[in-house]
């Protein structure tokens, strides 16, 4: 038999570290402009916490984009629904929430978050079956259907809860800050950062260590070939869609606690940020989404501190800059 190929080993694939270094470079670059180290540390901690919350909300959307090329403009509905469900669950336990015991607070918060995820995930099932299934492969109709779904969801929330802003105070043990020297870092931001990291690690473990994860990664790259291997990718997509919806629900609870309030259109501004994150991260890339979320949060926080007038456009400018550097996002996974 003929000997095959060259005997030289393949060059090891280069790890693409530039996107990972970008947030670090940005954080270091703004130090001279901010001036005070304590302000810089506080802003950086705020950026990490905000970035993690945005990542949790955006992670499902990027897989949905990458896996099935579905444009879901209604993703924000899962965020708002998650937050409202949390207010429902937490209302009877106001005393436990205000008890000065971390464990008692978490014993109430954790079930509320889990129930919010379950309801958002179930809503995801309905949305996928009713709104998205009939319009696979038709982007314009997807935009119309999912935007319409978002409007219906928001109006339903208004009808059920009224137009007023509902307060959702932080539990007593998560109020205040850890003070180290003259640096103050809000306790809740630390918790949000830890949860975001845990979600990121969990997603990475599933994607890299399980056959389900392999299927998702393969499907993002070439769904047709995954089907030709005998896997029903629509079922896989439904699972990813529901998980993404549930994560959006979790993000909604965390964001509502961060802002200490809930209202039906709370996701409107977030949706813009989430789409920016998904685009600059690279469609379907969880790693890109993670870095993109941190970058967006950094630009919002540093930009808001340094040049408040530019705050509204800073993330658009970030997106333009990233896409000029890498037109398919920080980590391109799909060919789209």
């Amino acid at each position: 038999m003929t000997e095959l190929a060259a005997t030289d080993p393949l060059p090891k694939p280069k790890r693409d570290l530039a996107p990972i270094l970008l947030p670090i470079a940005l954080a270091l670059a703004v130090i001279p402009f901010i001036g005070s180290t304590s302000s810089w540390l506080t802003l950086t901690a705020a950026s990490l916490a905000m970035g993690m919350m945005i990542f949790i909300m955006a992670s499902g959307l990027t897989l949905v984009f990458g896996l099935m090329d579905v444009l879901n403009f209604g993703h924000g509905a899962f965020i708002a629904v998650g937050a409202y469900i949390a207010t429902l669950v937490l209302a009877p336990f106001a005393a436990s929430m205000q008890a000065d015991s971390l464990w008692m607070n978490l014993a109430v918060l954790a079930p509320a978050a889990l129930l919010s995820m379950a309801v958002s995930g179930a809503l995801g099932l309905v949305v996928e079956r009713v709104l998205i299934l009939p319009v696979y492969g038709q982007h314009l109709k997807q935009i119309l259907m999912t935007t319409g779904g978002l409007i219906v969801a928001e109006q339903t929330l208004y009808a059920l809860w009224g137009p007023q802003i509902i307060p959702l105070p932080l539990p007593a043990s998560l109020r205040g800050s850890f003070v180290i020297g003259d640096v103050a870092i809000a306790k809740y931001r630390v918790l949000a950062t830890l949860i975001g990291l845990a979600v990121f690690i969990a997603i990475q473990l599933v994607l890299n260590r399980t056959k389900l994860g392999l299927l998702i990664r393969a499907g993002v790259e070439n769904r047709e070939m995954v089907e030709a291997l005998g896997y029903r990718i629509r079922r896989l997509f439904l699972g990813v869609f529901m998980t993404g919806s549930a994560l959006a629900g979790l993000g909604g609870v965390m964001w509502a606690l961060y802002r200490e309030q809930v209202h039906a259109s709370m996701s409107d501004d977030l949706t813009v940020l989430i789409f920016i994150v998904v685009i600059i991260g690279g469609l379907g890339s969880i790693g890109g989404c993670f870095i993109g979320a941190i970058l967006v949060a950094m630009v919002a926080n540093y930009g808001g501190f340094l040049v408040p007038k530019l705050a509204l456009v800073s993330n658009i400018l970030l997106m333009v800059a990233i896409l000029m550097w890498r037109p398919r996002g920080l980590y391109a996974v799909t060919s789209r």
Partner: protein
Amino acid sequence: MTDLLTLSGVHTHIGRYHILQGIDLVVPQGQTTMLLGRNGAGKTTTLRTIMGLWQASSGEINLAGERIESRATPDIARRGVGYVPESMAVFSDLTVKENLVLAARDGPLDDTQLDWIFGFFPALRRFWLSRAGSLSGGQKQMLSIARAIIEPRKLLLIDEPTKGLAPAIVMALIECLKDIKRKGATILLVEQNFFAARELGDSVLVMDNGTIVHRGGMAALAADVPLQERLLGLSLEAHQ
């Protein structure tokens, strides 16, 4: 000899283009059937239509006595059809091992089957944990074929496996496909390399403008230069 696959009056439209215009063909069990023809004749569309990647507009496709033209691609694959597309379509972000783990749908990788594949394609063993995207074109083609044969299949649909490959790798591919044949596999093989076609083919179908314009034995076509020139525009010798 029974026919494993039959197409009767199959038409396929892609958008407003009428690509397959009434294909009738049979692929006998245990044989390698070559599908030849000029570029744009409809060979790839035929394979994709059998695989369900493009839906037949009309006509019947029977696999082992069961109609499959309305089945979804995963259902067709689960009936024992392996597909090697022209583009190879390896999952670049996954390692060689992960590509094969996914292809082994029915369970863990079988060591005996793997050793058989490594016998033909030692590069796959060497680059077992390398990302498929970092492989050369020939190595990707090996991986693509390995993926299709990692588990026993009733029928293999292979689209231009030798395209753009170095002669040494083409020879290895031919040896591999011959061994697959010896194991009793049924293959429908689209090929532009006439040397490979002559080495592998039992029977031959020639397509032009979305229809079958010739069917017969591969040996007979290989021996008939005027017929080759009439059907394919060139003789086999010109392509060796």
